[in-house]
Protein backbone atom coordinates (compact mmCIF):
# COMPACT_ATOMS: atom_id res chain seq x y z
CA UNK A 1 0.00 0.00 0.00
CA UNK A 2 1.54 3.27 -1.18
CA UNK A 3 3.39 3.60 -4.48
CA UNK A 4 5.95 6.18 -3.44
CA UNK A 5 9.67 5.70 -3.95
CA UNK A 6 9.93 2.95 -1.35
CA UNK A 7 6.67 1.23 -2.32
CA UNK A 8 7.46 1.24 -6.03
CA UNK A 9 11.00 0.00 -5.52
CA UNK A 10 9.91 -2.76 -3.14
CA UNK A 11 7.14 -3.84 -5.51
CA UNK A 12 9.68 -3.98 -8.38
CA UNK A 13 12.14 -6.05 -6.33
CA UNK A 14 9.54 -8.53 -5.11
CA UNK A 15 8.08 -8.81 -8.58
CA UNK A 16 11.45 -9.56 -10.17
CA UNK A 17 12.01 -12.22 -7.49
CA UNK A 18 8.93 -14.01 -8.75
CA UNK A 19 6.35 -12.95 -6.12
CA UNK A 20 2.81 -12.08 -7.04
CA UNK A 21 2.56 -8.37 -6.16
CA UNK A 22 -0.39 -5.97 -6.05
CA UNK A 23 0.40 -2.33 -5.34
CA UNK A 24 -2.23 0.14 -4.14
CA UNK A 25 -2.22 3.90 -4.40
CA UNK A 26 -4.93 6.56 -4.32
CA UNK A 27 -3.34 8.34 -7.30
CA UNK A 28 -2.61 6.46 -10.52
CA UNK A 29 0.09 9.04 -11.35
CA UNK A 30 2.18 7.35 -8.65
CA UNK A 31 2.41 4.19 -10.71
CA UNK A 32 4.88 5.95 -13.05
CA UNK A 33 7.49 5.07 -10.41
CA UNK A 34 7.08 1.33 -11.05
CA UNK A 35 9.85 -0.20 -13.18
CA UNK A 36 8.79 -0.84 -16.81
CA UNK A 37 9.34 -4.56 -16.24
CA UNK A 38 6.77 -4.72 -13.39
CA UNK A 39 4.39 -7.56 -14.13
CA UNK A 40 2.21 -7.30 -11.02
CA UNK A 41 -1.07 -5.45 -10.54
CA UNK A 42 -1.32 -1.71 -9.89
CA UNK A 43 -4.66 -0.81 -8.33
CA UNK A 44 -6.06 2.66 -7.68
CA UNK A 45 -7.83 2.83 -4.33
CA UNK A 46 -7.67 3.65 -0.66
CA UNK A 47 -6.07 0.93 1.44
CA UNK A 48 -8.20 1.91 4.44
CA UNK A 49 -11.27 0.65 2.62
CA UNK A 50 -12.09 -3.01 3.20
CA UNK A 51 -13.65 -3.40 -0.24
CA UNK A 52 -10.53 -2.05 -1.93
CA UNK A 53 -8.35 -4.36 0.14
CA UNK A 54 -10.51 -7.34 -0.84
CA UNK A 55 -10.27 -6.33 -4.48
CA UNK A 56 -6.50 -6.23 -4.08
CA UNK A 57 -6.69 -9.84 -2.87
CA UNK A 58 -5.89 -9.29 0.81
CA UNK A 59 -7.82 -12.42 1.77
CA UNK A 60 -5.26 -14.58 -0.04
CA UNK A 61 -2.21 -12.41 0.73
CA UNK A 62 0.83 -13.80 2.54
CA UNK A 63 2.13 -10.36 3.39
CA UNK A 64 0.97 -6.74 3.58
CA UNK A 65 3.24 -3.70 3.66
CA UNK A 66 2.04 -0.16 4.41
CA UNK A 67 4.40 2.56 3.16
CA UNK A 68 2.25 5.63 2.46
CA UNK A 69 3.40 9.07 3.58
CA UNK A 70 0.93 9.08 6.48
CA UNK A 71 1.94 7.30 9.68
CA UNK A 72 -1.65 7.01 10.83
CA UNK A 73 -2.84 5.67 7.50
CA UNK A 74 -0.12 3.02 7.65
CA UNK A 75 -1.06 2.13 11.21
CA UNK A 76 -4.76 1.83 10.48
CA UNK A 77 -4.27 -0.17 7.27
CA UNK A 78 -1.80 -2.51 8.95
CA UNK A 79 -4.19 -3.14 11.82
CA UNK A 80 -7.00 -3.88 9.38
CA UNK A 81 -4.72 -6.32 7.51
CA UNK A 82 -3.53 -7.99 10.70
CA UNK A 83 -6.62 -8.06 12.89
CA UNK A 84 -9.48 -8.17 10.39
CA UNK A 85 -8.03 -10.07 7.44
CA UNK A 86 -5.47 -12.07 9.48
CA UNK A 87 -2.68 -11.55 6.96
CA UNK A 88 0.24 -13.68 8.25
CA UNK A 89 2.92 -11.01 7.84
CA UNK A 90 2.21 -7.30 8.16
CA UNK A 91 4.89 -4.61 8.05
CA UNK A 92 4.22 -0.96 8.75
CA UNK A 93 6.31 2.16 8.25
CA UNK A 94 5.95 4.79 10.98
CA UNK A 95 8.14 7.90 10.69
CA UNK A 96 7.44 9.06 14.25
CA UNK A 97 9.80 7.05 16.51
CA UNK A 98 7.54 7.30 19.59
CA UNK A 99 4.52 6.06 17.70
CA UNK A 100 6.63 3.26 16.18
CA UNK A 101 7.72 2.21 19.65
CA UNK A 102 4.13 2.14 20.91
CA UNK A 103 2.78 0.10 18.01
CA UNK A 104 5.71 -2.32 18.23
CA UNK A 105 4.78 -3.01 21.84
CA UNK A 106 1.19 -3.49 20.68
CA UNK A 107 2.39 -6.26 18.38
CA UNK A 108 2.67 -4.52 15.03
CA UNK A 109 5.87 -5.11 13.07
CA UNK A 110 6.71 -1.44 12.63
CA UNK A 111 9.84 0.33 11.44
CA UNK A 112 10.79 3.96 11.81
CA UNK A 113 12.98 5.19 8.92
CA UNK A 114 13.77 8.19 11.12
CA UNK A 115 15.40 6.06 13.80
CA UNK A 116 17.08 3.71 11.33
CA UNK A 117 18.57 6.47 9.21
CA UNK A 118 19.75 8.48 12.21
CA UNK A 119 21.54 5.37 13.46
CA UNK A 120 23.16 4.78 10.09
CA UNK A 121 24.38 8.38 9.96
CA UNK A 122 25.75 8.19 13.47
CA UNK A 123 27.62 4.98 12.67
CA UNK A 124 29.10 6.57 9.52
CA UNK A 125 30.21 9.64 11.43
CA UNK A 126 31.68 7.73 14.36
CA UNK A 127 33.54 5.11 12.34
Amino acid sequence: MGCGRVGAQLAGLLDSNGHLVTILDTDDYSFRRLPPTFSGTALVGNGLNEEVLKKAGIEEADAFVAVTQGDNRNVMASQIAKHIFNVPRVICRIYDPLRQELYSTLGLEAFSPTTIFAQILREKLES
Partner: protein
Amino acid sequence: MYIIVVGGGRLGYYLTKALISEGHEVVIVEKNPTICQNINDELGSVCIRGDGCEAATLTEIGTARADMLIAVTGDDEDNLVACQVAKHKFNVPRIIARVRNPQNETIFKKLGIDVTVSSTNIILENIKEELPTHPLTHLLTIRDKGLEIVEIKIPPDSTTIGKSLKELSLPEGSRLALIIPKEHNPRVPTSDTILRDGDRVIAVTTPESEAALRAALRGA
Protein backbone atom coordinates in the same frame (compact mmCIF):
# COMPACT_ATOMS: atom_id res chain seq x y z
CA MET B 1 -13.18 16.10 34.69
CA TYR B 2 -10.06 16.75 32.66
CA ILE B 3 -10.96 16.20 29.01
CA ILE B 4 -8.69 16.36 25.97
CA VAL B 5 -10.23 17.13 22.60
CA VAL B 6 -8.14 16.27 19.53
CA GLY B 7 -9.03 18.39 16.50
CA GLY B 8 -10.10 22.03 16.58
CA GLY B 9 -12.51 22.01 13.67
CA ARG B 10 -16.13 23.07 14.02
CA LEU B 11 -17.00 19.95 16.00
CA GLY B 12 -13.99 20.28 18.30
CA TYR B 13 -14.72 23.96 18.86
CA TYR B 14 -18.39 23.59 19.78
CA LEU B 15 -17.72 20.47 21.83
CA THR B 16 -15.07 22.30 23.84
CA LYS B 17 -17.36 25.27 24.34
CA ALA B 18 -20.08 22.98 25.68
CA LEU B 19 -17.69 21.06 27.93
CA ILE B 20 -16.24 24.27 29.38
CA SER B 21 -19.70 25.61 30.14
CA GLU B 22 -20.41 22.39 32.02
CA GLY B 23 -17.43 23.19 34.20
CA HIS B 24 -14.90 20.71 32.82
CA GLU B 25 -11.22 21.37 32.38
CA VAL B 26 -10.62 21.10 28.62
CA VAL B 27 -7.60 21.25 26.31
CA ILE B 28 -7.88 21.12 22.52
CA VAL B 29 -4.98 19.90 20.42
CA GLU B 30 -4.91 21.38 16.93
CA LYS B 31 -2.17 21.32 14.26
CA ASN B 32 -3.14 24.45 12.38
CA PRO B 33 -1.70 27.61 14.04
CA THR B 34 -4.39 29.96 12.67
CA ILE B 35 -7.23 27.77 13.93
CA CYS B 36 -5.43 27.46 17.24
CA GLN B 37 -5.09 31.23 17.54
CA ASN B 38 -8.77 31.79 16.70
CA ILE B 39 -9.92 29.31 19.32
CA ASN B 40 -7.69 30.87 21.97
CA ASP B 41 -8.97 34.35 21.09
CA GLU B 42 -12.55 33.20 21.57
CA LEU B 43 -12.41 30.66 24.39
CA GLY B 44 -9.29 31.70 26.31
CA SER B 45 -6.11 29.64 26.43
CA VAL B 46 -7.54 26.20 25.80
CA CYS B 47 -5.87 25.28 22.51
CA ILE B 48 -2.40 23.79 22.24
CA ARG B 49 -0.77 23.72 18.85
CA GLY B 50 0.42 20.21 18.11
CA ASP B 51 -0.28 16.75 16.81
CA GLY B 52 -2.73 14.86 19.02
CA CYS B 53 -1.26 11.56 17.85
CA GLU B 54 2.22 12.47 19.01
CA ALA B 55 3.22 11.19 22.41
CA ALA B 56 5.38 14.28 23.03
CA THR B 57 2.42 16.64 22.63
CA LEU B 58 0.19 14.44 24.75
CA THR B 59 2.82 14.26 27.50
CA GLU B 60 3.15 18.06 27.48
CA ILE B 61 -0.56 18.52 28.20
CA GLY B 62 -0.62 15.94 30.97
CA THR B 63 -2.59 13.24 29.20
CA ALA B 64 -1.72 10.72 31.91
CA ARG B 65 -4.10 12.51 34.30
CA ALA B 66 -6.86 12.97 31.73
CA ASP B 67 -10.24 11.40 32.47
CA MET B 68 -11.25 11.31 28.84
CA LEU B 69 -9.93 11.89 25.33
CA ILE B 70 -12.25 12.68 22.45
CA ALA B 71 -10.80 12.59 18.91
CA VAL B 72 -12.87 14.60 16.46
CA THR B 73 -10.58 15.42 13.56
CA GLY B 74 -11.90 14.99 10.02
CA ASP B 75 -9.67 11.97 9.35
CA ASP B 76 -10.68 8.61 10.73
CA GLU B 77 -7.12 7.27 10.80
CA ASP B 78 -5.97 10.23 12.90
CA ASN B 79 -8.83 9.71 15.35
CA LEU B 80 -7.98 6.02 15.60
CA VAL B 81 -4.32 6.62 16.35
CA ALA B 82 -4.97 9.48 18.81
CA CYS B 83 -7.31 7.19 20.75
CA GLN B 84 -4.98 4.20 20.68
CA VAL B 85 -2.03 6.30 21.85
CA ALA B 86 -4.15 7.75 24.68
CA LYS B 87 -5.45 4.34 25.68
CA HIS B 88 -2.25 2.31 25.50
CA LYS B 89 0.47 4.83 26.31
CA PHE B 90 -1.33 7.08 28.78
CA ASN B 91 -4.02 4.72 30.11
CA VAL B 92 -6.76 7.29 29.61
CA PRO B 93 -9.84 5.54 31.06
CA ARG B 94 -12.36 6.76 28.51
CA ILE B 95 -11.82 7.40 24.82
CA ILE B 96 -14.27 8.43 22.16
CA ALA B 97 -13.55 8.54 18.42
CA ARG B 98 -15.46 10.33 15.74
CA VAL B 99 -15.89 8.22 12.62
CA ARG B 100 -16.58 9.84 9.26
CA ASN B 101 -16.86 6.69 7.19
CA PRO B 102 -19.65 4.54 8.71
CA GLN B 103 -17.79 1.39 7.59
CA ASN B 104 -15.04 2.23 10.04
CA GLU B 105 -17.33 1.89 13.04
CA THR B 106 -16.95 -1.90 13.13
CA ILE B 107 -13.25 -1.68 12.29
CA PHE B 108 -12.65 0.69 15.21
CA LYS B 109 -14.53 -1.62 17.58
CA LYS B 110 -12.39 -4.57 16.50
CA LEU B 111 -9.29 -2.45 17.05
CA GLY B 112 -10.24 -1.65 20.63
CA ILE B 113 -12.01 1.70 20.41
CA ASP B 114 -15.15 1.08 22.47
CA VAL B 115 -17.05 4.25 21.79
CA THR B 116 -17.37 5.65 18.29
CA VAL B 117 -19.69 8.34 17.05
CA SER B 118 -20.45 8.24 13.34
CA SER B 119 -21.25 11.77 12.24
CA THR B 120 -22.39 10.52 8.82
CA ASN B 121 -24.82 8.01 10.33
CA ILE B 122 -26.29 10.58 12.70
CA ILE B 123 -26.97 13.00 9.87
CA LEU B 124 -28.44 10.23 7.71
CA GLU B 125 -30.68 9.09 10.56
CA ASN B 126 -31.88 12.64 11.21
CA ILE B 127 -32.72 13.18 7.56
CA LYS B 128 -34.47 9.82 7.26
CA GLU B 129 -36.55 10.64 10.34
CA GLU B 130 -38.03 13.56 8.41
CA LEU B 131 -39.12 11.31 5.55
CA PRO B 132 -42.81 10.57 6.08
CA THR B 133 -42.44 7.05 4.70
CA HIS B 134 -39.55 6.10 6.94
CA PRO B 135 -40.78 3.24 9.15
CA LEU B 136 -38.14 3.03 11.87
CA THR B 137 -35.98 5.61 13.58
CA HIS B 138 -33.06 4.88 15.90
CA LEU B 139 -33.38 7.03 18.97
CA LEU B 140 -30.65 5.74 21.22
CA THR B 141 -28.06 2.98 21.41
CA ILE B 142 -27.33 1.31 24.73
CA ARG B 143 -23.91 -0.03 23.90
CA ASP B 144 -23.04 -2.08 26.94
CA LYS B 145 -26.31 -4.05 26.68
CA GLY B 146 -26.29 -4.34 22.89
CA LEU B 147 -29.75 -2.76 22.75
CA GLU B 148 -31.28 0.14 20.91
CA ILE B 149 -34.33 2.28 21.44
CA VAL B 150 -36.31 2.80 18.26
CA GLU B 151 -39.46 4.52 17.13
CA ILE B 152 -41.81 2.72 14.73
CA LYS B 153 -44.64 4.52 13.01
CA ILE B 154 -47.89 2.67 12.31
CA PRO B 155 -49.01 3.80 8.84
CA PRO B 156 -52.69 3.61 7.74
CA ASP B 157 -52.12 0.49 5.61
CA SER B 158 -50.80 -1.61 8.50
CA THR B 159 -52.69 -4.89 8.90
CA THR B 160 -52.14 -4.70 12.66
CA ILE B 161 -54.44 -1.71 13.16
CA GLY B 162 -57.30 -2.62 15.52
CA LYS B 163 -55.43 -5.60 16.93
CA SER B 164 -54.36 -5.83 20.55
CA LEU B 165 -50.70 -6.23 21.35
CA LYS B 166 -51.16 -9.77 22.67
CA GLU B 167 -52.29 -10.82 19.19
CA LEU B 168 -48.96 -9.78 17.72
CA SER B 169 -45.92 -12.03 17.86
CA LEU B 170 -43.12 -9.74 18.87
CA PRO B 171 -39.59 -11.07 18.40
CA GLU B 172 -37.63 -12.20 21.41
CA GLY B 173 -35.50 -9.47 22.90
CA SER B 174 -37.93 -6.70 21.94
CA ARG B 175 -40.06 -4.80 24.46
CA LEU B 176 -42.57 -2.06 23.81
CA ALA B 177 -41.97 0.87 26.12
CA LEU B 178 -44.44 3.55 25.09
CA ILE B 179 -47.16 4.26 22.57
CA ILE B 180 -47.70 7.81 21.40
CA PRO B 181 -51.08 8.07 19.66
CA LYS B 182 -51.78 10.78 17.10
CA GLU B 183 -54.42 12.50 19.24
CA HIS B 184 -54.11 11.35 22.84
CA ASN B 185 -51.48 11.35 25.52
CA PRO B 186 -48.66 8.83 25.47
CA ARG B 187 -49.41 5.62 27.37
CA VAL B 188 -47.49 2.62 28.59
CA PRO B 189 -48.72 -0.34 26.55
CA THR B 190 -50.31 -3.43 28.10
CA SER B 191 -51.20 -6.69 26.37
CA ASP B 192 -54.74 -5.33 25.78
CA THR B 193 -53.62 -2.08 24.15
CA ILE B 194 -55.09 -1.73 20.66
CA LEU B 195 -52.87 -0.37 17.89
CA ARG B 196 -54.26 2.61 15.99
CA ASP B 197 -53.42 4.32 12.74
CA GLY B 198 -50.69 6.91 13.28
CA ASP B 199 -49.44 5.49 16.57
CA ARG B 200 -45.78 5.92 17.27
CA VAL B 201 -44.36 2.99 19.16
CA ILE B 202 -41.21 3.42 21.22
CA ALA B 203 -39.50 0.06 21.70
CA VAL B 204 -36.33 -1.47 23.09
CA THR B 205 -34.79 -4.09 20.81
CA THR B 206 -31.61 -5.81 19.78
CA PRO B 207 -30.27 -4.72 16.38
CA GLU B 208 -30.87 -8.28 15.07
CA SER B 209 -34.58 -8.24 15.96
CA GLU B 210 -35.17 -4.79 14.51
CA ALA B 211 -36.63 -5.94 11.18
CA ALA B 212 -38.79 -8.61 12.83
CA LEU B 213 -40.15 -6.09 15.32
CA ARG B 214 -41.05 -3.69 12.56
CA ALA B 215 -42.79 -6.45 10.62
CA ALA B 216 -44.67 -7.61 13.73
CA LEU B 217 -45.96 -4.11 14.50
CA ARG B 218 -46.99 -3.15 11.00
CA GLY B 219 -48.05 -6.51 9.64
CA ALA B 220 -45.73 -8.12 7.12
